[in-house]
């Protein structure tokens, strides 16, 4: 349980650029340590996507719940938000929001964030490329999301529905 808390404390500190960037890091921490199988983690991600709330947060809650039940869920969630809330508190309440946005630190963070995204894509690609059908779905989702303004939620729900229909028919 202590290892779980420390892991999510650390993950929260690096969660720049929104939830999706950090999902690859969560996977590396949780699956490589043997806490969950890649298949079980894939299920958690699928559930996190279609549950209300930020994806990184949902993933932390789910991993905690899966490993240690209610208390695991509570502690993993609190751990992942500890660093973000502390930093926000310092900036908004103590510094009254007078922190310069933009500039050199922002550019340095972008460099790291793009790296985290590359890591996330890399770590999930082999599982999505397991069959021609999942590969086609992933490529279609990429094209739709990169070149149209379709809400990602419809892509996720649509693909889930296709998966359910395919499973029942074949």
């Amino acid at each position, binding site marked *: 349980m202590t290892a779980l808390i420390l892991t999510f404390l650390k993950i929260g500190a690096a969660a720049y650029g929104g939830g999706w960037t950090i999902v690859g890091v969560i996977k590396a*921490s949780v699956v490589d340590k043997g806490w969950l199988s890649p298949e079980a983690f894939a299920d958690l991600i699928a559930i996190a996507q279609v549950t209300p709330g930020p994806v990184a947060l949902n993933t932390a*809650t789910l991993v905690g719940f899966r490993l240690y039940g209610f208390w695991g869920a509570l502690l993993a969630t609190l751990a992942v938000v500890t660093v973000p809330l502390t930093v*926000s508190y310092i900036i908004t309440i103590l510094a009254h929001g007078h922190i310069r946005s933009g500039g050199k630190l922002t550019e340095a963070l972008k460099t790291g*964030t793009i790296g985290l995204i590359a890591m996330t894509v890399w770590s999930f690609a082999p599982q999505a490329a397991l069959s021609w059908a999942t590969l086609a779905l992933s490529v279609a989702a990429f094209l739709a999301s990169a070149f149209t303004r379709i809400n990602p939620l419809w892509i996720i729900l649509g693909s889930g529905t296709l998966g359910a229909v395919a499973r029942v028919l074949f």
Partner: protein
Amino acid sequence: MNPREAGRGPESAAPAPGFLSVFSLFFGISALTIGGGYVMVPVIQRAVEKKGWLPEAEFYDLFAAAQSVPGPMALNAATFVGGKVAGIKGFIAGATGILLPPFIAILLVSSLIGAAGEHPLLRGFLDGAFAVVPGLVAALGLNMVRKRAWKKRRALLTLLGSIALILAGPWAVPVFFIIIALSRLAEGRGA
């Protein structure tokens, strides 16, 4: 009308909202918006503008500052807005409002899915919903790459940083901070 009153912004014209009104706004948004930060942030912006708490331009200034903080974007947007319009009680109201609904939803969904077991419809839905993840995240990455102002040193560092993170596995967090430190130094030298 004296000049001080004429210069007042819209957020000081109305009395500061209380804990419950900030909490219930963010609780509602968090409970009803599926799809993470990219969907939630514009919803938060429209809601606080409609309430007369913050004009649009001020929201996006605040949001730019919120992005320099790690953590889910929707959570940071809520704590920054809450802190701005109602101080410390607004900060707490924003954080708890965003955090509670998904927590409750996940406990419910996990118990339901546990009960449904390996039903083929559910199995197929989860497989299908997961299959799009690499594609969606790659599209997110492409958008970041397209929006960025590229210089030689920046591009090289981004490429090397991506490779280092892919190789890092469980060491990703320390490697991430080393990359940030190195690229901060490189930016500082007029890259």
